[in-house]
């Protein structure tokens, strides 16, 4: 029995047999050919390249979601159509008498080598594209393209070096048990999708591939973040028991899909979803969410060399809004620190990025980019029910500026004659203490408030949640945080406005009752947590918790509060 630590992407236990999907296996084959075979080998080259280009064309046609994906596939096509590629392969086959596989391998190894050494940060990530194309071509030549999943069944746990988002969707359809990758991060697009599908997955399991054989018994413990290879009988029995319990809970939860989220004492709570990328919409619809409470738009801006156009954004917002009809979607304008955008914006070095130019501040400093996003949103609003929300609001000032910009956008759109609908609810994120304190004024200037608990805790307690050495200071139930939520809700309700919570606190079972007792009207959680939180709402008697509220609000420490909830 061996245990390897990784980072858990989604909770839950998976038990199955290891199935290794190894890209690099395809590369190893060195063979010289005879002179008489040269002609045949070269025709194989032409035929296979032609087919892969045809296949890419089909993929490009069917990619309706993102321009980014389409661009990547277009660039893959270009790599195959490159005249120098053709020339080099013909030399390798005709003169050096390499077999086709070896010729291709040589070419791409050279190319990848060049790009790994290129001193230009916009190009170094091109290595992935060359790796992908080489893989696509070689696996087609070897006829393995369709056979990659031949041995994959309901019992499989896939082991890979890394995984692409489209691959996750494909394997999910195969009903596999789980997924481990040696590289990757918790926040990659692949991980986000796996999480929203509740598929047990670990990333960053260093050394896994070297320690495992195909078909070996395997357990993923997504709750504690490790894999167990060839577990002993007693360990296996222990996990089977956990698995059974989890399955029963899951089955119970699935029954809640069509049940309304109403508390025991009859208050209807709107339970919405947070999404980070458009692909998560499938899960939102599957779990019958009351809409999207937080549609993050950062994915459109980070990890790329250029800015998304208004048109590209419009298509994506429209697509999501249409799919959610009649439910609303709340789009949050870009919310990143400047550091993440340094390759597309002119960003000056900041000594303290968390207190620097981020969230709405970035938008107000780069008005042309902000206007593109606003225009895309109001145009998409013609096709659905969209609300818009702004991050890092510190007071009324930013809201007034934003409203002015929306007006300008509307005027410009009228002049161009493009259809739009700027009549939509505006919301402010409450995540800075100054916004909590002035939430009465803010509520007057907008239609709803949404509390982002992660940042609110971070800024209220002045603690960086990613800093291990001070993680003890990060306390969601610190009296200051609970009182801040109370103050915000009371101020908003006085003005007749609703309050949502879209931070991680809403996704944690143990805080649901407290948030509802504080008067929160809406919870927004990641799709994978929807049913768990719905169960919590249905089981909640708000009045019961509210009876304890005075006591909770007068607590001196978070420890005291935790005891009461």
């Amino acid at each position: 029995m061996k245990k390897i630590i990784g980072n858990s992407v989604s909770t839950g236990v998976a038990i199955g047999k290891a199935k290794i999907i190894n890209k690099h296996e395809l590369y190893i084959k060195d063979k010289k050919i005879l002179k008489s075979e040269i002609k045949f080998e070269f025709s194989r080259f032409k035929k296979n390249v032609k087919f892969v280009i045809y296949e890419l064309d089909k993929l490009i046609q069917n990619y309706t979601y993102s321009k980014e994906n389409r661009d990547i596939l277009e660039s893959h096509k270009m790599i195959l159509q490159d005249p120098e590629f053709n020339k080099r392969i013909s030399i390798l086959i005709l003169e050096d008498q390499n077999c086709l596989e070896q010729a291709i391998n040589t070419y791409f190894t050279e190319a990848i080598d060049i790009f790994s050494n290129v001193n230009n940060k916009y190009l170094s990530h091109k290595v992935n594209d060359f790796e992908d194309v080489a893989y696509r071509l070689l696996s087609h030549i070897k006829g393995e393209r369709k056979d990659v999943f031949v041995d994959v069944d309901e019992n499989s746990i896939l082991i890979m070096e890394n995984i692409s988002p489209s691959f996750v969707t494909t394997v999910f359809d195969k009903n596999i048990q789980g997924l481990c990758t040696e590289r990757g991060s918790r926040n990659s697009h692949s991980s986000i999708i796996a999480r929203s599908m509740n598929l047990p997955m670990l990333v960053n399991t260093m050394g896994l591939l070297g320690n495992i054989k195909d078909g070996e018994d395997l357990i993923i413990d997504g709750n504690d973040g490790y894999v167990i290879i060839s577990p002993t009988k007693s360990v296996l029995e222990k996990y089977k028991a956990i698995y059974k319990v989890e399955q029963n809970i899951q089955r119970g939860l699935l029954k809640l899909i069509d049940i309304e989220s109403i508390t025991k004492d009859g208050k209807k709570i709107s339970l919405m979803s947070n999404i980070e990328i458009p692909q998560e919409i499938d899960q939102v619809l599957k779990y019958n969410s009351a809409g999207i409470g937080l549609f993050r738009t950062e994915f459109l801006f980070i990890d790329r060399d250029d800015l998304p156009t208004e048109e590209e954004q419009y298509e994506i917002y429209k697509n999501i809004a249409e799919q959610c009809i009649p439910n609303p979607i709340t789009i949050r304008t870009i919310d990143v620190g400047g550091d993440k955008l340094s390759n597309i914006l002119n960003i000056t070095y900041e000594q303290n990025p968390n207190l620097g130019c981020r969230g709405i501040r970035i938008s107000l400093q780069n008005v042309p980019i902000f206007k593109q996003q606003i225009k895309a949103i109001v145009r998409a609003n013609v096709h659905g029910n969209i609300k818009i929300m702004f991050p890092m609001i510190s007071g009324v000032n930013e809201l007034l500026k934003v409203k002015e910009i929306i007006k300008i956008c509307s005027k410009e759109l009228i002049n161009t004659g493009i259809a739009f609908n700027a009549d939509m609810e505006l919301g402010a994120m409450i995540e800075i203490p100054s916004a909590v304190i002035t939430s009465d004024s803010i509520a007057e200037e907008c239609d709803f408030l949404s509390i982002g608990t992660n940042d609110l805790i971070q800024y209220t307690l002045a603690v960086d949640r990613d800093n291990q050495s001070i993680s003890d200071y990060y306390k969601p139930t610190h009296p200051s945080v609970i009182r801040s939520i109370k103050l915000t809700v009371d101020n908003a309700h006085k003005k007749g406005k609703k309050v949502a919570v879209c931070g991680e606190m809403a996704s944690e079972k143990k805080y649901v009752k407290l948030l509802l007792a504080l008067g929160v009207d809406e919870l927004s959680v990641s799709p994978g947590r929807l049913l768990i939180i719905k169960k919590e709402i249905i089981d909640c008697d708000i009045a019961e918790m509210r009876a304890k509220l005075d006591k909770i609000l007068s607590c001196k420490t978070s420890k005291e509060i935790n005891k009461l909830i």
Partner: protein
Amino acid sequence: MIRKTIKIVNKLGMHARPATMIVKAATKYRSEFRIVKSDMEINGKSIMGVMTLAAEFGSELELVADGVDEKFLIQEIVEMFLNKFGEE
């Protein structure tokens, strides 16, 4: 044959997107097209070639076209450079 020297004026330099634009445009023409950067010369219709130039902001390139439609090819490519590949 036409030769034309040009400076890279878009801030990000010759990254993946401009490279793709150049190759796409050049491929439409029948003329041969090469790009020279100091001691390096590459095929301007090859995505691999254009990207390996890794030309940064401010660096100088020589565009060389040779063939029946060389004039139009150079014209279109030069325009792209001057428009900073639509970046700003």
